[in-house]
């Protein structure tokens, strides 16, 4: 469930970043709620593909790197501390999240089939290297097994996706700037939680070494 709640706590921010990409597309097409719903499903499918790929990558990372390190608590703790510090910096000190979905404008021009644009945006949002995503990857890798990593990202996907469901009814999110601020601040607070968990893991790792 940790993946689900990490997703939920970051979903608002994802929404705030992805909506400017999706909403103009939906409004531009102007084919009503049913079409918007299809576009959203394409977007979410692309996003899910990206997340599952990362679940697999997290498992590979665990096998290739963490598995050869003996007790991995200290290393995981250090990763927690680094990524959570980044997340706090982005969340609380007003830095912009490096979300890949923002480059969709450039890429969209090169996609010949318009139907694929939401899916491309979804994949980009699913392979973003933003701090919450890196934290999720660390969490997924810490679990050990392939099934855990995949399931973790599946739940992370579910948590972030809940916020997107009302999107076909465009116009519901008029105050995107406010949502973005709240989302970033919530991510900063989640970062604080992971920072604490990381510090505890580092201290325990040092004591154990």
């Amino acid at each position, binding site marked *: 469930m940790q993946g689900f*709640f990490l997703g939920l706590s970051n979903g608002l921010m994802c929404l705030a970043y992805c909506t400017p990409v999706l909403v103009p597309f939906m409004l531009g097409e102007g084919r009503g709620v049913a079409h918007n719903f299809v576009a959203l499903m394409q977007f979410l499918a692309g996003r899910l593909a990206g997340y599952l790929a990362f679940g697999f990558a997290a498992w590979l990372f665990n096998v290739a790197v963490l598995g050869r390190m003996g007790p991995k608590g200290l290393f995981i703790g250090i990763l927690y501390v680094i990524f959570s510090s980044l997340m706090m910096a982005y969340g609380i000190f007003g830095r912009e999240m490096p979300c890949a979905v923002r480059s969709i404008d450039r890429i969209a021009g090169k996609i010949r089939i318009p139907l694929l644009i939401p899916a491309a945006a979804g994949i980009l949002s699913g392979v973003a290297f933003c701090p919450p995503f890196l934290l999720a990857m660390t969490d997924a890798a810490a679990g050990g097994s392939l099934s855990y990593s995949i399931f973790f990202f599946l739940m992370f996907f579910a948590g972030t996706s809940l916020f997107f469901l009302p999107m076909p009814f465009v116009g519901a999110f008029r105050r995107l700037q406010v949502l973005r601020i*709240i989302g970033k601040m919530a991510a900063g607070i989640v970062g604080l939680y992971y920072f604490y968990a990381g510090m505890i893991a580092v201290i325990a790792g040092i004591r154990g070494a």
Partner: protein
Amino acid sequence: MKINPPQARQREGMVKTVLLTVVMAVITIIMFSKGKIPQNTKELIALILTILFANTLFFLMVHTGKTDRYRAVYFSTFAVMLIISFISHMFGARGSMSLSEAKVLQCEVPFCHLVIPMTLVPMALTKTIIFPGSLIGGYASIASMFVLWIGATLALGRGFCSWGCFYGGLDDGFSRVLKRPVIKKINPKWIYLPFAVLLFVVLTAAAYLSPTYCTWFCPFKAVTEFEAVTSTKILIQTIIFVSLFIGLVIVLPILTKRRTQCAFLCPFGAMQSLTNKINVFDVRIDKEKCVKCKRCIQVCPTLSMSEESLEDGRARITCMKCGKCIDSCPKGAISYHIKGTDVAGNNNAYRLLFLFAAFLFISIFSAHIIQDGIVRVLKLITTGSMIL
């Protein structure tokens, strides 16, 4: 631009004020005394003082047209009396302010309204209240707090934070210590932090079935009760809540003249802000009268007034309905208002309706606590101990 001193626009005549105060006095006498005269002298004195105190403030509010000035006196007194009453009660019942694991297991932890946002999702999912308090009866039961909260929310919306919260009077009081703020510029984006805290605590409470805000952040544990320090984790929690209390409830309110805990941290306040949408009362600005002197923006304790508010003719969703902007407006352009009515309508009537509901709520909610506080202070004076 030269600004005239605020006008006491919404003052009422002596006859009307006396009539309204008599009605309030009758209700408060019945409610405060619970229909019987105390036999104990200290309790009798406390009852008389509380009735006089409440009704004098109500009289002054109605007669002078000033809301915030007298509300703040009541509100801060309520908070101070709560601390006196609660701490001495804890010493009487447990021998200390700290909470032992045994008391948690016995579900003897007093419930407070700040926990409510954390209990709603777990309650819906598991049909369990994730707080070790007593449901009915006992000290500060869960059921009574829920009933009070629902009633106050329907009547006041986020006005609860200025007319009901028994902690809010602390940072409200400290925010009035200096005549001018030392820190004048605050980035308005911080008003969204309580919403982020709300999102975080609701999710973590649902994930871990634990009231995370109470465990980790609540600054008011410093003046009520806290877990006895028996581990490094509890020590860290203690450092966090003491720092938040000193920073957000004492130091920053003094330096900024804003209610920083309520405006920039409290998740309950964020939830109450959302209830402002369904509440019948709001604070509106008559754009015809407004001269954009921005005095309301300068004085608002929660940054709920902005230039955008002046353009829109309404306060932000975070407005606590304290009345400070209304008192300070030199043109009488800001007023309490009933949704669906004309902004330039009968503002005096709207104000009186709001005042009656809000004042009745705070006076009934606080009566027992203030009386208990007075009894304990009298006991301290006469016997040297506050414990009953």
